[in-house]
């Protein structure tokens, strides 16, 4: 939320309660305030097509509000009719009557001369994993698989620390070119890749995934993605070609440790 935008809009709507403007002004103010909030009020912008959808709903709701009451309807209809009929509004009416077709023509022109945009592919970032994978001859049932070394955290802290250190070595020998030193997806190559490397600091990535999911993504890389993940365009290598299973589990321990996050636990299976 951008408070710089949202708070003034709230102030305007609150102010309407005290000013008590004419119905038609009230309508326009509500419509505009909601539009400005949706369009500019969010740090991550809402897509234009979705804003259009929302504004369609808002228009319907406001219309229903007006139609529900005879008096409100009259308050809206009368000024509109006056504008279209009365002599004193004639110049303004003519200006509006010319302006709207011109705007329509400009929109057509803009659409026909717009810079062409390359086709985009809305890939699924975290597609559903397969039931099981085989890595270096070992079968891993992804639904129930846990990091085999996670339990060492409690039972053998010394070995766990060793594994973290090995994971750290693996990370800085292999991963940080893309995923970056801070694991924020801003490695040296990030600006040359599409899709960009995953930001592990984002709570929407590894913190909401299970370690087995990471093991699948690391071992099988982009070529192991299902179609909806866009296996043809991701640069994630299939690390089973370079790393042992143990190294992959170790680097997973390191990812969570470095980012101070915990993996999602395996859900209870009946």
């Amino acid at each position, binding site marked *: 939320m951008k408070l710089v935008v949202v708070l003034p809009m709230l102030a305007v709507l609150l102010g309407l309660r005290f000013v008590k403007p004419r119905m038609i002004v009230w309508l326009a103010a509500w419509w505009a305030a909601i539009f400005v909030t949706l369009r500019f009020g969010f740090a991550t912008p809402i897509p234009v097509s979705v804003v259009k959808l929302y504004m369609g709903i808002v228009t319907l709701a406001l219309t229903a509000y007006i139609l529900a009451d005879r008096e409100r309807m009259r308050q809206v209809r009368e000024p509109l*009719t006056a504008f*279209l*009929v009365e002599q004193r509004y004639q110049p303004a*009416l003519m200006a509006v*009557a*010319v302006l*709207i*077709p*011109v705007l*329509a*023509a*400009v*929109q*057509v*022109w803009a659409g*026909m*001369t717009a810079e*062409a945009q*390359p*086709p985009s*592919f809305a890939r699924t970032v975290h597609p559903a994993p397969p039931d099981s994978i085989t890595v270096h001859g070992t079968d891993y049932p992804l639904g129930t698989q846990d990091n085999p070394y996670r339990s060492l*955290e*409690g039972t053998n*802290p*010394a070995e766990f*620390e060793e594994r*973290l*250190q090995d994971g*750290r*070595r693996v*990370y*800085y*020998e292999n991963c*940080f*070119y*893309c995923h*970056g*030193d*801070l694991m924020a997806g*801003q*490695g*040296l*190559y990030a*600006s*040359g*890749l*599409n899709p960009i490397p995953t930001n592990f600091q984002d709570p929407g990535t590894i913190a909401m995934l299970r370690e087995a999911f990471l093991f699948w993504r690391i071992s099988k*890389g*982009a*070529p192991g993605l299902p179609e909806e993940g*866009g*296996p*043809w*365009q991701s*640069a994630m*290598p299939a690390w089973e*070609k*370079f790393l042992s299973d143990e190294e992959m589990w170790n680097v997973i321990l390191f990812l969570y*440790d*470095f980012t101070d996050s915990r993996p999602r636990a395996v859900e209870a299976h009946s």
Partner: protein
Amino acid sequence: MTAARKAGRLALLGLVAVSLATAPAAGQDGAAVYGKYCSQCHGDNGDGQGVAAPYLKPWPRDFTAGKYKIRSTPTGGLPTDADLHMVIREGLPYTAMPAFPNLSDAELDAVVQVIQGFSPDFEDPEAQIPPIAIPDPPQWTEERAERGLQVYGETGCGRCHGDVGRGDGMSAPTLTDDWGQPIRVADLTMPWTFRGGGTRRDIFRTMSTGFNGTPMPGFHGALPEEDIWAIVDYIASLSGNTVDEPYQNLVRSVPRAGGLELEKADELFAEAPKAMFRVVGQVVQPGRHFQPSIYAIGLQAVHNRRDIAFRVSWHDMRAETTGVSGPDLEAPSWGDVLTALGVGRGPGGGSGDEGDGGDIWGGAAEESSDPWGDAVADDGGSGDDVWGDAVADDAGGGDDVWGDAVADEGSDDIWGQAETSAPEGPTGPRAEFADAVALQFPLQNPSGVRLPYFLLGDSENGVQLWFADLAAGQPRLYSANGSDKVVPGDAEPPEMIASYDQGEWSVVFKSPRRVPGSGLEFADDAFVPLALTVWDGFMRDRGNRRGLTPWYYVHVEPIDRPSPVGPMVKAGVGVLAIELLLIGLVRFAARRKRNAAESA
């Protein structure tokens, strides 16, 4: 984090903590920060020998030497605290040194103390040289930039940076730092890659203070301030005052009347916008290449009704126009690379002298003792190797050829001869691997969103490569269904012409828009996926050891673009008609109502 693990981690940081006896309070925090963020590259002892070091170019700084590139102090001086803060906060572009915006000011202070603690120089009061004042930049002017070009020439900047700043000076291939490591000369046309920053203020600082430990001198005191600003403005003009990365994801092919004559490439592409694409190393499959020498590649495209032509251009320190090339050559295996990298060997060792396969630039397990990884090192008995001979003459047969070659002015003569004897372009000495470039397209236009795998396709979706062999000056056509299934194509390859001028390769391909022997067509208004690969022979690139881009697109702008006037008029008149109808109806209704009221 459990207490036991915390204790284990602190023990690991013990080595760091030792050097912090002077500042125990800050030291604890500083050691933790250093241990988490710095030691993987710079090493637990600050000697630049962390686990990642062998993979990096340039090498991580060896803090024990007290030699720092980015400073505000004169040549030979130590960086100020503010200098170190700045480097850590902002990072060094196009190196593995990232920006650390996440550190608090206190953490930054603490880690700077740790770093300074690695070198006794920071405790020597005599080594504390006050910084050079960096004035506010004057407004950029054309006149100053023009004078800058003159000063640039007189000062000899071009000997390393090239006559037009493309990092292709005669000395460029021979330069090493104080640790004997080869270093790349900055390409002055790409300020976003400058280690010390690309703003005019940054360039003034770099020009004034130089880079300690490298051949880049500081000109503070050696050149009048206005001359330094003149060079700064000239450098800024080389990129059109662009400081940020200008990369794109689409190249527009523009229609052109008449034939597409390859010989008149400059004229042909004069109106075609140049898209710059970032080049990254092929690190996904065996043959991994961690630091490709080409940062960026430019692409232009034009077409007429029959043909389409692409011009690929990139900056290369030296043209390798001998030796072999090809996407199907075997690249060094991952295991060989690891062996050759000699993991565990320190950067202080000076791989150039050791001759133990320390081929870091080349990344190959070959017998090369040459830190650049160029094939010249196998010059042992090959008498016709220009470079080998030149080096032998220069260095008197010594092993440490690079240092001598740099110091010895004689090397310029060799280059002079090489240039005059090769009028085609200032090509390098005989290399084992030639420079090459390839455009990658799908075998046929994709029907949906699915593309072939960006690394040379996959078993179901093949790609074609328009390949330019720059040793033979000949085009070749390949088709591929994955890196291990690259085969020469059956059809006639596209036409190709190549030139190398002042550090820039320019390669033009031309093909019928309906590409022979494949299902690919560059139809009007179509978006055709394309990817690029570039091989630098100097770096021993070949096969899957290459710099590349992911899929981008070329948009073929329609030759017959429909005029927007007709649809505009239609839309306008339509809307107007509806308006008039609406107004008319409302007025009609209003009049009837009034009449009714009057008659009543």
